[in-house]
């Protein structure tokens, strides 16, 4: 978690440290337009890590006994002509509702709340996850509710309609995915990032966005008031 705090407070020390600006013509152009932090939350076993991984069995091991898990990833996506760096945090292993550090939520611009369509209980726990977001995250955070494991249709316990209805009632986006079959996973990230980018006030310089967020009034767009449910069903 130290790194996250550093990256958000410094925005990279290179920008803030030199007292005298150092001009270096060789410095490459800043290679992205925006950077955002996203987090993945949801009950244990719903497939958060699989959503973030393409080949989940290939994590390397430091010794034959222990596998070193992934802490976070930097991923680049392009949308609407913008290049976006995402820092994505997987909270797997910290699923007890109050054990996910508030620091994860604090810096995040978007959150993916995942449940398992074959496990009713993980769906019923969604309100608790949304409460955690309301408690710890910025009020304008973008939320998408994700029903995972559409590859196990025969075991489905939560209908698509119920998922849609829940998301609609809580003013979140909604999507069903299969991480295993890599179905809709990329769409979910793109949708979420589009929503975040749409909120960036056009007059704000993209590079200054992260540093200025604390002083910006965001009243007209704050909160999850706009209902923009969409569903990319797999059928």
């Amino acid at each position, binding site marked *: 978690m*130290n*790194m996250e705090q*550093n*990256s958000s407070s*410094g925005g*990279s*020390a*290179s920008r803030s440290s030199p007292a005298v600006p150092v001009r270096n013509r*060789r410095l*490459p152009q800043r*290679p*992205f337009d925006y*950077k955002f932090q996203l987090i993945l939350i949801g009950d244990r076993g719903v497939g958060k890590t699989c959503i973030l*991984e*393409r*080949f*989940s*069995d*290939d*994590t*390397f*091991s*430091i*010794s*034959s006994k222990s*596998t*070193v*898990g*992934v*802490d*976070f*990833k*930097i*991923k*680049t996506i392009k949308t609407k002509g913008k290049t976006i*760096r995402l*820092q994505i945090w997987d909270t797997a292993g910290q699923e007890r509702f109050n054990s996910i550090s508030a620091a994860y939520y604090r810096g995040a611009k978007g959150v993916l709340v995942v449940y398992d369509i074959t496990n009713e209980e993980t769906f019923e726990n969604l309100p608790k996850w949304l409460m955690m977001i309301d408690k710890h995250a910025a009020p304008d955070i973008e939320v998408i509710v994700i029903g995972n494991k559409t590859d196990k249709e025969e075991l489905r316990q939560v209908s698509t309609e119920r998922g849609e209805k829940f998301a609609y009632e809580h003013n979140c986006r909604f999507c069903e995915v299969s991480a295993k079959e890599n179905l809709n996973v990329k769409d979910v990230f793109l949708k979420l990032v589009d929503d975040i980018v749409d909120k960036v006030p056009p007059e704000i310089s993209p590079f200054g966005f992260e540093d200025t967020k604390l002083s910006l009034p965001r009243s007209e767009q704050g909160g999850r008031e706009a209902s923009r449910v969409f569903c990319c069903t797999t059928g």
Partner: protein
Amino acid sequence: MDELLSDGEKNAKTVTCQRCGSVVLKPNNATLVKKEKFLPSMRKKSEGTDQAGDTLQEFWLVTDMYTFENVGFTNTVENIKFLICADCEIGPIGWHDLSDKQAFYVALERVEHK
């Protein structure tokens, strides 16, 4: 070696994952540094042999983690986070020592240059 460098010190080519081709760094974003560092071997946990690793000499140095196009960070082991491919998670392809916030190293031997 020279064909990998531009301006005598930067990466002239795109740095990608050896296995899946995921783009790690775009050209001219990292600086070559020579440094001795032991990294655990790149093998899947399914492969049995207990091969410890290699001492590597040449690295691409990046000073801001957002310079990477795609990269994964492992959990911390003895104050170090290993860098892995963000897509297929092969690694470690490099490392980051938490005591130096502005240094992220990618081993030349463990990536492709295209």
